[in-house]
């Protein structure tokens, strides 16, 4: 099955480009540590998911690029074409001239309806090119105006036009100390709207990725490109072909379904966090070796202690005593309760890995059995030159504190009524804000009371 990617706004387009680059360079690489036949099968599967073949032989990304100003799309298209290894369809983009002005209401209420037909036509065309449509993957930031506002509108349109397809939104959370002053308003409006039309939100936080760049990748002058490349690597580690649990010998043919069905058992809980280890500069890769037990131990503690990466993990945090049923208010404060987790392992000796520690019932709520709450995909074909790579996609309290912080700051600003006139002039009223706050306070409450 194929995934149609919709890149929205500057962030969405910049990340989308890095993602397709990584996917393409991974399948072209010879670091798969597997047989030629296995490698070809992997390549075919990736291509089916993300690329279509043109006569020229250059893979064409299954993507629609949307932005309300022209510069980023223009750059993105030409960078891809220059690579010589893949490209975008030269017609599969839509842009305007004036931008959205970091105004969610402008993106949602003005640009959305105005350009709905044109954008959905492009999406329809891409969907029709797929033999079997596996769903939609949208990439957007929630701080600005286009990715956030127009992105929320487009997601709704996708839901209306494709009621039975999977929709996964990749949402970038901005730096806490601001890229955009009204980012918290835009975030609250985006998250609450997406909650109603999307199947799940896969979140990356700029602050977290920035730390990875600084402390693990040893980059001195970190650029947005560096941040985007780490994000792309993490996305690739999830979306490249995998063998699912009962999948037999072939690669999974329903990537979004396989991801979303076990992770989102209840509609109230749709926020997915992502962690990937190890992360290091490419130059260090040949000199590093890792053991699976070590990686699994770290990944589990990252989950339990809500760590952002493999350095600075708080090893003091322990799950509550197994067997006893503890009301949520008595659980250790820093402990992360999960609804469902997915661990994706790629590389050498993957089948020898013991993941029993992730099935510990004390990690989870009581609604699902640990067998249902925890899933693992093991794939021997190594990813992106990492001999061993482990990813965790988690529906847990990972994002609770950051979400609460964003809602708190937005509420603080809302109480003073600052900037509201900028939204009301495009049709988003105070009552609309209140509805969004209510939705998100509900989500916060639900996750808190796990």
């Amino acid at each position, binding site marked *: 099955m194929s995934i149609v990617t919709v890149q929205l706004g500057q962030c969405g387009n910049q990340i989308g480009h890095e993602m397709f680059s990584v996917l393409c360079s991974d399948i072209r690489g010879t670091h798969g540590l597997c047989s030629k036949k296995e490698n070809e099968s992997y390549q075919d599967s990736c291509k089916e998911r993300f690329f279509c073949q043109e006569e020229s032989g250059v893979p064409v990304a299954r993507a629609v690029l949307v932005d309300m100003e022209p510069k980023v799309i223009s750059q993105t298209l030409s960078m891809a074409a220059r690579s010589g290894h893949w490209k975008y369809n030269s017609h599969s983009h839509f842009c305007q*001239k004036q931008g959205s002005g970091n105004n969610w209401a402008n993106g949602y209420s003005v640009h959305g309806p105005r350009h709905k037909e044109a954008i959905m036509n492009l999406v329809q065309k891409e969907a029709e090119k797929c033999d079997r449509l596996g769903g939609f993957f949208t990439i957007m930031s929630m701080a600005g105006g286009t990715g956030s506002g127009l992105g929320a509108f487009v997601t709704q349109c996708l839901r209306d036009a494709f009621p039975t397809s999977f929709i996964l939104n990749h949402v970038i959370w901005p730096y806490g100390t601001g890229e955009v002053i009204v980012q918290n308003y835009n975030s609250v409006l985006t998250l609450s709207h997406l909650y109603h039309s999307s199947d799940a939100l896969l979140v990356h936080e700029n602050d977290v990725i920035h730390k990875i760049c600084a402390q693990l990748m040893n980059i001195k002058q970190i650029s947005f490109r560096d941040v985007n490349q780490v994000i792309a690597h993490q996305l690739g580690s999830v979306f490249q072909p995998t063998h699912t649990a009962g999948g037999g010998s072939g690669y999974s043919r329903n990537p979004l379904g396989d991801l979303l069905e076990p992770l989102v058992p209840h509609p109230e809980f749709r926020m997915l966090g992502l962690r990937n280890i190890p992360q290091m500069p490419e130059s260090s890769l040949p000199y590093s070796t890792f053991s699976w037990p070590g990686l699994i131990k770290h990944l589990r503690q990252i989950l339990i202690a809500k760590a952002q990466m493999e350095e600075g993990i708080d090893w003091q945090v322990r799950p509550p005593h197994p067997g006893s049923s503890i009301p949520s208010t008595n659980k250790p404060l820093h402990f992360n309760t999960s609804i469902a987790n997915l661990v994706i392992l790629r590389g050498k000796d993957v089948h020898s890995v013991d993941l029993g520690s992730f099935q510990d019932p004390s990690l989870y709520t009581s609604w699902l059995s640990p067998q249902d709450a925890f899933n693992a995909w093991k794939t021997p074909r190594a990813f992106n030159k990492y001999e061993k790579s482990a990813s965790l996609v988690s529906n847990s309290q990972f994002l609770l504190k950051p979400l609460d912080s964003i809602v708190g700051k937005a509420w603080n*600003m809302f109480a003073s009524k*600052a900037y509201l006139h900028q939204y009301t002039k495009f049709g988003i009223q105070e009552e609309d804000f209140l509805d969004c706050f209510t939705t998100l306070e509900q989500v916060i409450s639900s996750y808190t009371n796990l």
Partner: protein
Amino acid sequence: AVSLPFAVGQCGNQVGCRFWDLALREHAAVNKKGIYDEALSSFFRNVDTRTGDNGPDIYKGKICSLKARALLIDMEEGVVNEILQGPLRDVFDSKQLITDVSGSGNNWAVGHKIYGCQYQENIVEKLRKTAEHCDCLQCFFIIHSMGGGTGSGLGTFVLNLLEEEFPEVYRFVTSVYPSGEDDVITSPYNSVLAMKELNEHADCVLPIENESLFEIVNKIHQMINSGKLGSAVKQSSLVTSSAGSAKTLQEKPFDAMNNIVANLLLNLTSSARFEGSLNMDLNEISMNLVPFPRLHYLVSSLTPLYTLADVNVPSRRLDQMFSDAFSRDHQLIQADPKHSLYLACALLVRGNVQVSDLRRNIERLKPSLHFVSWNQEGWKTGLCSVPPVGHSHSLLALANNTCVKPTFIELKDRFMKLYKKKAHLHHYLQIDGMEQSCFSEAVSSLSDLIEEYNELDATKGGPRIDPSRLKIAV
């Protein structure tokens, strides 16, 4: 997206002239192939002049003849004529000019009421024609001074017109405020009457004070002559310089100061014209820096003021650039944002600067700045890859900060000094459409604005009580 500058009055046109000159210099430095591109199109049309001046616009391909998208308005001919005889004469055509001969006599009412009425149709027609050539008109810039008659009176009349004719296009105004020692006695009247218009009809105002420009010019002069720099300064990098632009004649006294303002506008629009990893368009500036409609006065600062020519001398530390942006002597009005209250702050960086440099400096400087309680961490940031001519990096800071208050208070005081004695009032009241109420309403508008800043200042340093959150039934 296109930005359309209007230069109104003598000061406005002198600044405007420097702006167009430096804009051409900037685009020439970036655009090596002579292809008419998206960046150029925001300020210039590309006209096929082979068959004459009225040739069609060429939207793609090689540059034929660049024409500035602009309107030059003055009620005296001196300045505009000079522009039309100077090296920029081919950049403008007569359809963009509106001039008269007798001037406004430093009288806001003459500019606003008499010339406004007289030239309204002409202005609207030329405005519409100019707008027709624009694919997507995003923003108007009015460049003028507040203290005279034309820039101040007719300039604010044009502001009103723009709101009526193109309500959806943003209106940015660069206003040069008079100093206390201004030789135009009635400048306080003109300025306060104009302020009311700015309060009500502008989206964003960038106030500039001549004293600040003068101090910057002096500071650079002293630095160069003191020999402290150790090596020569790159001429083209001076924020005050016309080096490398079309103007080769002896620089006039105000040129250095006007170049600063021209550079301000170039930097303000750089991210809309050139690519970068975090674009910042003009509508975003308005969105993020104006929390309440009337509080739209933004204090600006530009750094660095120069770069050294000697490549062996290490470039001034990047962080120094950020520190300077917040220092008193880099602000373009007489104000000290560090000791007043920030409502919002924007940093537009150009050149080889990355997000980590931005983050590091924000973290470093934040503790010494006072932000309003509902916007403790709000920064608007932009990263444009293309640096200004002669620099490897630069920074424009825009602050919505209560430090504008003293400028407005002084203006009001100077106004009241004259108004109490009814000095020179008859020059205004004898104009058709002018009544005493125009004055009282104008000063009242200014007083209200000052009061809003007072209320905000009162919250500074006070206890921070976060409003309680919505409670959800579990």
